[in-house]
């Protein structure tokens, strides 16, 4: 073995040692983290919205429905809530859906609870399988006492691809997030 072979062998040995210590550091950090994840996540879209799984999973406890079920609830008159930000909502949304960006939920909760009265079911959605606003909103709604909340996991992307009814932001939808109105006299 010449000098350069020896140097290369030592460099590789050192790399293996660094990698093993790094691996242990990574696992220890995850075990102690308040945002820890399980070793294997739920990233396969065949089983619903992809997520890391575990205690901090946004999808935990929510009921996901597919496009067919969402259409059935749409025809039954369920209330649809669009959890995306205001701009994509204004551009296009499921016909009759209300805009409720997940981050603005706290400000809108009373208004919303008054609207979802009795046995009316709520369907929440965001852009596609890969957004988690709908899941976060669904969880918040369940925690607020609304029992029949469903997450349409495929979201706007699947709805549009199926050719189901959509609309632009028009006056008839009365979004929860309204433009500032002039003060009443």
């Amino acid at each position, binding site marked *: 073995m010449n000098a350069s072979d020896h*140097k290369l062998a*030592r*460099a*590789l*040995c*050192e*790399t*293996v*040692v*660094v*990698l093993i*210590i*790094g*691996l*242990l*550091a*990574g*696992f*220890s*950090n*995850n075990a102690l*983290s308040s*945002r*820890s*994840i*399980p*070793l*294997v*996540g*739920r*990233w*396969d879209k065949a089983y619903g919205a*992809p997520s*890391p*799984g*575990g205690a*901090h*999973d946004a999808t935990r406890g929510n009921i996901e429905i597919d496009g067919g079920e969402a259409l059935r609830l749409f025809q039954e008159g369920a209330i649809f809530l669009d959890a995306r930000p205001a701009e994509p909502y204004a551009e296009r949304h499921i016909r009759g859906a209300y805009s409720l960006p997940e981050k603005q939920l706290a400000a809108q909760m009373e208004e919303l609870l008054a609207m979802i009265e009795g046995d009316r079911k709520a369907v929440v959605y965001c852009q596609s399988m*890969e957004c988690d606003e709908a899941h976060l909103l669904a969880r918040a709604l369940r925690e607020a006492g609304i029992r029949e909340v469903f997450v349409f996991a495929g979201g706007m992307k699947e709805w549009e691809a199926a050719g189901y009814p959509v609309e632009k932001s028009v006056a008839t939808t009365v979004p929860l997030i309204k433009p500032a109105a002039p003060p009443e006299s």
Partner: protein
Amino acid sequence: MKHGGSQLLNQSTVLILRLFLGALFIYASLHKLGDPVSFSKIIYGYKILPAWAVNLAAIVLPGVELIAGVFLVLGLLSRGASLTITLSLGVFICSLAYNLWRGLEFDCGCFSFAHSPRGAAADLLIRDLVLLALGLRVVFARRYACSLDWLFGLERGGKCFARD
């Protein structure tokens, strides 16, 4: 005397690069270590790893970044630490280039979880190529000045800056 001067310059350059790359990797690892949930989503967004490997990568990668960074700053197993950093930069570069080539939009997640602006992938690629070149310079250094390797006798020479 001239020869000794160039050795000193070389060793100083490697020392500065070691400290810079090490500190950069430590900094880059911290937000990932603090939030494995968000980092796993970033890794998923690259759409490269199979479903079963996403969480494992999100758990292991920040740990390796941190340890390689700390070791490089301290000068402990310097060649191994710099080779680890260079290899991980190689992996980032391949992932970035692959996604740039197939036109996939994704978040880098390199230094924060804030959404990166569109078209930023090409800039990232150039930045990582520069870092890769710097990393290779450290991997192929003749010796590591002022390092723990030197203190523990893993490096030859009897001074912080040694002559051959």
